[in-house]
């Protein structure tokens, strides 16, 4: 049975609609992450569930009772909130603050009993804050404060715990500790946790399910696998991301790759000769800078091959761990000949990929500028008894440009691009001139013909 049900609510701040037709239901032991970009309505959703912001339309049920029909004391006995910022006006001690969590359970004239202090102590021990009990809250660090506030929420002995970015002030250790604690309470005591997260990976590690909000609407909801997909992330955040299962924690993890930017308009296309990860960063940079990138020959399963797949870069590929065959060599040659520059990274050369250097030689002969990145001296990565080195020397003599690193390469590519543009501009302007001249000639001719007609 659903403990908490949100039935198609709309929320407004003034005349601005911040939530639209939001529906969800949460059951005991659910650990739900609320995700979404800034301003997507995450906090608003928590506020309306916590009986702070009444929705204009729709109902929120807590154990089948409309929470806005309940008194705040009744809600506070079942639901606790850990807000994002905690500014406290006076110098209350941490214990005072946690004891305030007992408020819904005390009558107006009751003082806190030993039982209440015992509960406060237990929750403070759980959040590792009991040693801070006598310290004024305002003197504590952000992380300590946050844990005291969580202790206060737990002192309410709630069935539902709402948290607004609970780990934002915490260091890695405290993040895991806090999340482990929440997870444990969720599993052992059946506590429902509904928390806003900015850190997708933390959410992915602890949540059972997630709600992805954008612009006040639920984009996706349900199991993590269904919500945390690269398509959803792209749709909501305009970010390219890779979603994978982590080999150790077995939870999903997300690596943002890049912002989706309108592609820069570059004319230059670059063919990369790389492998074993030497081309990974370069591929990403070149792709982001707007170059048309191709690569080859790369063995399937090579790191660079995988990166190229990810970045959707065309590759001439060879079967895993196999030397380059004549056929692939030709395909690669074909691909390379369309490029306006060839770049050879500091890839180790063995007999299997030696032919990639022959491609480069071919490129030079066809007048395609060729760059060699020499981050690592060739002697250290030549496993062909000097053959690769010989090839490189030959390339040098044929006019290959040797650069020390990526940055040098990028600035040279820039210059090359400018040159290319200039010649293009020139060639586009010159025929234009001719055209207008011919036009005027035509006009003249027409005039002439007219005059001759008369």
């Amino acid at each position, binding site marked *: 049975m659903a403990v908490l049900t949100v039935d198609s609510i709309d929320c407004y701040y003034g005349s601005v609609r911040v939530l639209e037709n939001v529906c969800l239901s949460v059951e005991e032991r659910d650990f739900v992450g609320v995700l979404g970009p800034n301003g997507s309505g995450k906090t608003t959703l928590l506020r309306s569930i916590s009986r702070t912001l009444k929705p204009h339309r729709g109902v929120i049920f807590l154990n089948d009772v409309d929470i806005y029909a309940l008194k*705040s004391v009744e809600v506070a006995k079942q639901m606790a*909130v850990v*807000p994002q910022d*905690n500014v406290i006006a006076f110098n209350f001690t941490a214990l005072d603050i946690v004891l305030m*969590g007992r*408020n819904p359970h005390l009558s107006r004239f009751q003082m806190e009993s030993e039982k209440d202090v015992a509960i406060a102590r237990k929750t403070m021990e759980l959040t590792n804050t009991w*040693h801070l009990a006598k310290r004024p809250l305002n003197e504590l660090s952000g992380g300590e404060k946050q844990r005291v506030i969580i202790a206060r929420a737990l002192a309410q002995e709630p069935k539902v715990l709402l948290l607004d970015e609970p780990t934002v002030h915490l260091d890695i250790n405290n993040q895991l500790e806090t999340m482990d604690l929440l997870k444990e309470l969720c599993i052992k005591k059946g506590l429902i946790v509904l928390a806003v997260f900015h850190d997708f990976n933390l959410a992915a590690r602890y949540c059972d399910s997630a709600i992805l909000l954008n612009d006040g609407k639920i984009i996706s909801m349900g199991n993590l696998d269904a919500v945390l997909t690269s398509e959803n992330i792209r749709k909501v955040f305009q970010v390219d991301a890779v979603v994978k299962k982590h080999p150790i924690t077995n939870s999903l993890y997300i690596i943002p790759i890049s912002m989706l930017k309108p592609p820069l308009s570059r004319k230059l296309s670059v063919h990369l000769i790389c492998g074993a990860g030497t081309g990974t960063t370069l591929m990403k940079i070149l792709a982001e800078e707007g170059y048309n990138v191709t690569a080859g020959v790369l063995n399937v399963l090579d790191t660079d091959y995988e990166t190229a797949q990810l970045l959707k870069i065309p590759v001439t590929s060879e079967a895993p761990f196999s030397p380059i065959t004549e056929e692939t060599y030709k395909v690669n040659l074909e691909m390379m000949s369309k490029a306006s520059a060839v770049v050879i990274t500091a890839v180790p050369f063995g007999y299997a990929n030696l032919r990639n250097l022959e491609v480069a030689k071919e490129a030079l002969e066809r007048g395609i500028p060729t760059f060699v990145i020499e981050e690592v001296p060739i002697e250290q990565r030549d496993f062909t008894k000097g053959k690769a080195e010989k090839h490189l020397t030959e390339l040098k003599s044929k006019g290959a440009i040797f650069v020390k690193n990526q940055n040098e390469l990028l600035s040279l590519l820039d210059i090359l691009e400018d040159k290319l543009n200039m010649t293009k501009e020139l060639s586009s302007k010159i025929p234009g001139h001719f055209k207008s001249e011919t036009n005027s000639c035509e006009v003249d001719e027409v005039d002439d013909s007219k005059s001759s007609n008369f």
Partner: protein
Amino acid sequence: MSTNGVETTYFRRVSRWKLLLIILTVVLVLTIVLSLNVGFAQIPFSTILQILAKRIPFLGSLIGPSNISYPEERIILEIRMPRILAGALVGAALSAAGVVYQGIFKNPMADPYVLGVSAGAAVGASLAIVFGIGFTLFGVNTMPILAFAGSLVAVFIVYNISRVGSRVPVTTLLLSGIAVSIFLSAIVAILQVIAGKKLHAVVFWLMGGFSGVEWKDVWAILPLIFIGTVIIYFFARDLNILSLGEETAQNLGVDVEKVKKVLLIFGSLVTAAAVSISGLIGFIGLMIPHITRIMIGPDHRVLLPTSIIVGASFLVICDAVARVIVSPVELPVGVITALSGGPFFIYLLRKKKESYGV
């Protein structure tokens, strides 16, 4: 440190509070008795004690006819006593209201007058003085009544200006309080200009004081202030929780808007009652809560009663000083509280600066 110590200290704190309150109450009683000794007419302290003792059942019958003269008894019981008790009541009311307003507004500069109580009362009192609106109506002095009514009208206006639906945001409340106060002060200024010979009376009222207070004034404000502060005290724990912010307080089960409304109504009521007989006495409501907070911490369940007793004692002392410091002329007590309060406030600011390293 033994963890059990924390609990013990916590519960010992409550008994410490009780002890402190008892001590302070004794101090208040002593202050009242001692200040009976202060005044233009020299009356021996032993005579004063006899006069008081005569009034106490059983003890009174033990004291035989003595050398107490009728004028002495009258001065003590009919002139000094009501005036001192009025001082204690007003000090208590203003301190309680100060605690409430600082708690609600979470602003150290908040005092009982932020909602325009003072300006409203000033308009009422000035009207009564300047136009002499039937100085007695059915034998009752109308000036306190007009002052009382004026202050409540002002608060009512401020409250309704700030109201958004069923909610009253504190920032708006604070700002509309200032706006209405400025407007009403301008009216008082106009009244002062046309006051002519009565200007002296208006100015004297504005500075606050207890000269001429009678028993019937005490009886008029006693129930209002007593009931008001008791009701305020019921909400002491809610005031604690309100310091976490209104939204959090709501989440902790406090019915914020209701609590705020009750506290604002009764805070204004006790302030209006106090102001109606004493005029505008500054600084008490601002500084007594600060002093007691430094003394015993921020918990309103002890802060409120402590402030009430300390405020009462302080105003009784200030009034005693006002009566004799430039004798035979009497200074308005508002001058004494401001003279002692101003420097204190500067000290407080300096101290805060140090502790926050600003």
